[in-house]
């Protein structure tokens, strides 16, 4: 008789396990891979990534993957891509978007000797052929101009794909489709992060470039990070080489995993153990996280990574040096710089005389908690 209580009927949906969408952003910056080549060539890394993708697909029938390449001058899809460019006009859906279906790109003469689970093979064929196309289209001239990678673009592509798939999944499963951009419980005290009933998405960044070259993308990268934070999409970062200032912040802000690999040759094992568990399993696991996150920002004026900067009090823009005319470059507010640029003669005079009238309004306005000890 006592078997009925108020909580029991919630278990009916306990077995409803929504699939997860894993988006991998592979940094294909040739400069960085050239440095890594002795320990982990790109081809080996891609092979490891493919096994990892297959493992993710193997975990659930409805799991999805997407792969974005973040190259030196552009960010591009490796999987899924539309099957053929000639069918562009016919395959548009009602929104006018071109549907990206994980369709086989009609492989030339499928060799029957390879016996492979078909979803695995489609992913593998598309990723390798698209990566090959990307590499052959890269010219030495385009490489000489820049050494950084288009991480911001890749993140944006990944986010738009996730958004699109989430909407499509909700439509197909009768979820809340009215405002998919709004997390339904952003204000509540839900500590679990993602709501249980929608497509679970996450982003994994395989980073090799160092951040010094990508400081000019600071603003778009941070915007993407905040979008992920709001949508409860964890950004996992697997760092093979270089230092990634902003990516540490990305995984920290979105509760993702950050791992800098000491031994890049063990990439597959790192991926399998650290990055394969999805959000549901992560609740039960002790995750590798980083405690000493590098929170440095890049200035808005010169895109330099700064330790100490100057912040506009109106719009919170960061600048590496005080503004000449006191006008914020971002919001245009006139800022009273006070007497910032004054010569440090203040200190010198203080030493000579104890009581002296400070020469600026800002100096008098600042109360000093402990008076300078007298001589």
């Amino acid at each position, binding site marked *: 008789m006592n078997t009925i209580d108020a909580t029991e009927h919630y278990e009916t949906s306990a077995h409803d396990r929504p699939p997860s969408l894993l988006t991998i952003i592979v940094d294909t910056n040739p400069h960085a891979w050239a440095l890594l080549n002795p320990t982990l060539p790109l081809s080996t890394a891609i092979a490891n990534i493919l096994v990892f993708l297959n493992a993710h697909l193997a975990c*659930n029938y409805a799991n999805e993957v997407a792969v974005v390449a973040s190259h030196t001058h552009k960010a591009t899809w490796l999987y899924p891509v539309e099957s053929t460019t000639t069918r562009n006009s016919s395959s548009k859906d009602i929104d006018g978007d071109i549907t990206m279906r994980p369709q086989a790109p009609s492989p030339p003469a499928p060799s029957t000797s390879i016996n492979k689970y078909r979803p695995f093979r489609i992913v593998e064929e598309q990723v390798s052929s698209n990566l090959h196309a990307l590499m052959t289209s890269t010219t030495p001239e385009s490489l000489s101009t820049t050494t950084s990678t288009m991480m911001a673009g890749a993140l944006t592509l990944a986010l738009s794909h996730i958004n699109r798939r989430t909407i499509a999944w909700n439509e197909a*499963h009768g979820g809340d489709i009215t405002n998919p951009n709004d997390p339904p419980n952003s204000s509540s005290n839900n500590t679990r992060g993602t709501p249980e009933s929608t497509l679970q998405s996450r982003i994994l960044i395989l980073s090799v470039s160092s951040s010094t070259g990508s400081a000019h993308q600071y603003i778009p990268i941070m915007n993407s990070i905040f979008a992920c934070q709001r949508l409860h999409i964890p950004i996992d970062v697997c760092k093979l080489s270089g230092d990634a200032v902003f990516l540490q912040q990305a995984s920290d802000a979105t509760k993702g995993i950050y791992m800098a690999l000491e031994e890049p040759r063990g990439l597959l094992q790192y991926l399998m153990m650290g990055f394969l568990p999805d959000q549901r399993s992560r609740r039960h696991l002790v995750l590798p996280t980083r405690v000493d996150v590098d929170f440095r920002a890049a200035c808005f004026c010169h895109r330099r990574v700064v330790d100490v900067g100057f912040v506009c009090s109106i719009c919170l823009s960061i600048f590496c040096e005080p503004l000449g005319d006191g006008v914020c470059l971002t919001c245009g507010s006139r800022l009273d710089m006070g007497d910032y640029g004054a010569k440090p003669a203040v200190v010198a005079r203080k030493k000579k005389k104890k009581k002296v009238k400070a020469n600026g309004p800002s100096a008098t306005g600042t109360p000093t908690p402990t008076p300078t000890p007298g001589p």
Partner: protein
Amino acid sequence: MAAAPSSRPFEYLESLPGTVFFKLYQQPSTALAIFRRMLPDLAKCFVMALLYLKQPLPAADLEVWVQSESLKERDNALSILGRLHILSNTVTADNVRAYMVTDPFATSLRNALTGADQTQSFGVLSHVPSGSEVSIAGLDEYARRQWEGVLGYMVGTGGLGTQREVTLSKGVKELLQAGHLVEIRDRRVEITQDGFAFVLQDVSTQVWHILILYVESATAIGMDSVEVLSFVFLLSSLELGKSYEKNHLTSKQLRMLTDLADFGIVYQESPDAPRFYPTRLATTLTSDSSALSNPILGALSGPTGDPSSKAGTGFIIIETNYRVYAYTSSPLQISLIALFTTLKYRFPNLITGKITRQSVRRAVEMGITADQIISYLSTHAHPQMRKHNVSRSTSNQAGIPPSVLPPTVVDQIRLWQLERDRLKATSGFLFKDFVSLAEYEAPCRYAEEIGVLAWKSDQKRMFFVTRHEQVAAFLRSRK
């Protein structure tokens, strides 16, 4: 609670001896299917983490990997892995207890992931001359017709005549009888209690049920259960809408193919055709219950021939005042709903009715449980209900998975069932006629400690236990 979708195949597999597993795991598609379908999330993480390790992972390391609050989940995952012979206990070189993935399974799963498979276990695609391919819609239609035919035969809607009559082969009927889903009385088909439970389940559970029955009956007539099971798992890894070569299959597998075609699990133009197509019933075998909301499974149970059914998943709306609206014209679904509802009106595409105390009690008397009714209703709930309830319950109860049905209806159905369940039978053994209170108390306390005590009466000096061996031994030892 209705059985978890994977429980039945899991129970069957678990009962198999270890040598069968050894043979089963030789085939990559089997390893993949079992990995995907039978394991809980945490177990999948363990397997994948251990898969590419050269050395066994010390048990202590695995234990610290799991958060301390999740010990239950960890032990559950480890015990399932052990029962399926996937994880084995070993010791490392310096004598530390450690886990490793057993060999045929590890090799096969690695082969499945990397594609280094030599056994053709993922099927061989057949090249169909263009123009004669069977479309996915055609396959879905075929699967739906066959499956509804099977269910209709069980429920007895064949006489309604609104549907095209599906001719069921003798094998199908025999299998349903052998599985005690139907009984033939006076040459009339009568559904059994198990049959009611069966028809109310979701489609993927039904398919597994049938397949396990098939494997059992095949073993009974001398077919090798490994071969049959391997073929089932092979089917589950095929792709919908593609045709596959038959000439790699053994004669027994060809025979299975014909039998499974009767259920709509595979499709072949004729028994002699050189190729076969898996239908969605086969290709979604390794998906878990979220595939229920797949458009096609929805169409399988939804209104027949209605183009809009592809978009939606379910068709039943229940209000908090117990009224039921079902957008269906399928005689099968109508007769299922009529099992536990008092139907009021019938329109071309809609029936309405009400869940009442009488109707639920009638269903319970027929052997249907409240859990079956609830799981049937929530499986086929209209998208509008899902949407409404999901948005409402996430706003006020964060963290609790939302219930699709109105909680008051769910609770009331359970209470109505409990009205009948006032007696609970427990088989066991009664100990009585103790001479003194002390003589009575000691074994009684012992039985309570070992957890077999079901009932006791100090006044009458009697107690009732579910198992007597240990208590009897205890009594002997005191004499």
